[in-house]
């Protein structure tokens, strides 16, 4: 016969009980925007390093207007979710390597201005009608243009760290069994790159660029599906708290959101659409691209909310 247990806790603290509600929608949104920005910057940098700027203008030029906006909005969202926001500057009084949030904050401090500089280096090509009024700004733009490749070299590692960081931020917490798996870093990086590729796909004007990013995105989706299977398998073979965490995704309140919006509509359907496009059928690329972006956003919301339900004690 099974043992019964009745449990009563005298604790009822706001936002802690019955389940944790410490991180809200701004965190999910930030994780999505950070990944998207990192993905776009990564592709722009890699194309620049390879010297293919002429062939893929959307990637290096037009799409890079998004990262500074996305990262700034993401940072605003982060600060908005702090409960002691006037002390935010305390983040930059120390570097704590053990805390992913600390080095994430420093990486953002470097990457966000760099993303602004990158767009500024294309200013005269992006906004030919609005001339810069001051001479020193024109000189600054020329200087940036000359150093674009150097910026690209810096952005490749920075964007990868930023993309992984959005996942490691969560996976560093062993108290939340759903988050506490090593796959979350690579999974969020892949998802971030995939949403970046989808955005380029959405904005690209030439068939050549569209096809390249269709292929890249298809590959990333396959990797992402593999990582999701890997994540579920590792939790299925885990301890009791991990089994309970997995149950939320595969047979609980987040099943529809996770499998419906992330796995099927966000990954499998766009993969099929992109594949049919690559082999020559006419498919409006906006459909898979938007599905991927929605799927990426929902993935962040599901992981942040479901993770906070999982715990060790009661």
């Amino acid at each position, binding site marked *: 016969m099974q*043992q*019964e247990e009745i449990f009563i806790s*005298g604790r009822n603290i706001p936002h802690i009980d019955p389940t*944790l509600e410490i991180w809200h929608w701004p965190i999910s949104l930030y994780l999505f925007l950070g990944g998207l920005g990192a993905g776009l910057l990564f592709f722009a940098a890699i194309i620049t390093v390879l010297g293919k700027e002429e062939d893929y203008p959307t990637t290096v030029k037009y799409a890079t207007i998004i990262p500074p906006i996305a990262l700034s909005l993401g940072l605003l969202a982060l600060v908005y979710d*702090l409960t002691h926001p006037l002390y935010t500057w305390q983040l930059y009084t120390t570097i704590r390597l*053990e805390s992913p949030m600390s080095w994430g*904050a420093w990486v953002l401090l470097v990457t966000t201005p760099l993303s602004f500089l990158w767009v500024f280096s294309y200013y005269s090509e992006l906004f030919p009608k609005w001339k810069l009024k001051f001479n020193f700004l024109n000189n600054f733009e020329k200087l940036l243009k000359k150093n674009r490749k150097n910026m690209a070299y810096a952005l490749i590692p920075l964007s990868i760290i930023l993309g992984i960081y959005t996942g490691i931020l969560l996976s*560093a917490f*062993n108290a939340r069994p759903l988050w506490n798996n090593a796959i979350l870093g690579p999974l969020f990086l892949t998802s971030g790159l995939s949403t970046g590729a989808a955005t380029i796909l959405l904005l690209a004007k030439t068939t050549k660029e569209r096809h390249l990013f269709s292929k890249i995105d298809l590959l990333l989706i396959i990797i992402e599906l593999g990582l999701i299977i890997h994540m579920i398998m590792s939790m299925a073979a885990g301890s009791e708290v991990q089994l309970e965490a997995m149950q939320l995704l595969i047979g609980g309140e987040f099943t529809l959101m996770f499998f419906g919006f992330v796995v099927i509509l966000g990954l499998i359907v766009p993969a099929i659409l992109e594949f049919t496009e690559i082999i020559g059928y006419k498919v409006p690329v906006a459909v898979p691209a938007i599905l991927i972006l929605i799927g990426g956003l929902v993935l962040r919301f599901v992981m942040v909310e479901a993770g906070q339900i999982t715990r060790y004690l009661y």
Partner: protein
Amino acid sequence: MRYAMVIDTLKCVGCSDCVVACQTENSVPVGYCRDWVTESVSGTYPTLELELKSERCNHCDNAPCVRCCPTGASHIVKGGIVLVIGDECIGCGACIESCPYDARYQHPDGYVDKCTFCHHRLEKGQLPACVSVCPTKCMYFGDLDDPNSEVSKLLKRRKHKTLAPEAGTKPNVYYLI
């Protein structure tokens, strides 16, 4: 020096005096608490077992809250006590997410707050408020590095457990069972 708290679950009656003493001593805002009492009934009728526990921050040796704090507001002081400096805390909530005991909360003023083992009383040579008021004297406080302290002797003699040891945090609040 390694401070530890030992709580005798066989002597605890669940009166919540420790909770009220803490709230009064530390001016804990209304609706919040730094310690709390849990009650669990387990087994199959008629052989039921009741366990009462006064729980709080475990002042872990391997404190995940200190590890993940991005500003260093959460830190460990002499004796292994985990403290938070309110003016360095940005209220990001990382420590709350990282605590397997959910012992921390966001103070209405914004910073993160939790049990301090009554650090201010220890400095004056007094016991933590919760320990000092317990009517059944089921709580003990002392130094685990001293083999002659009451807590060391109790842990040597009695069967005991800690909460969620599988979380790997090496907690310093022990429950005699």
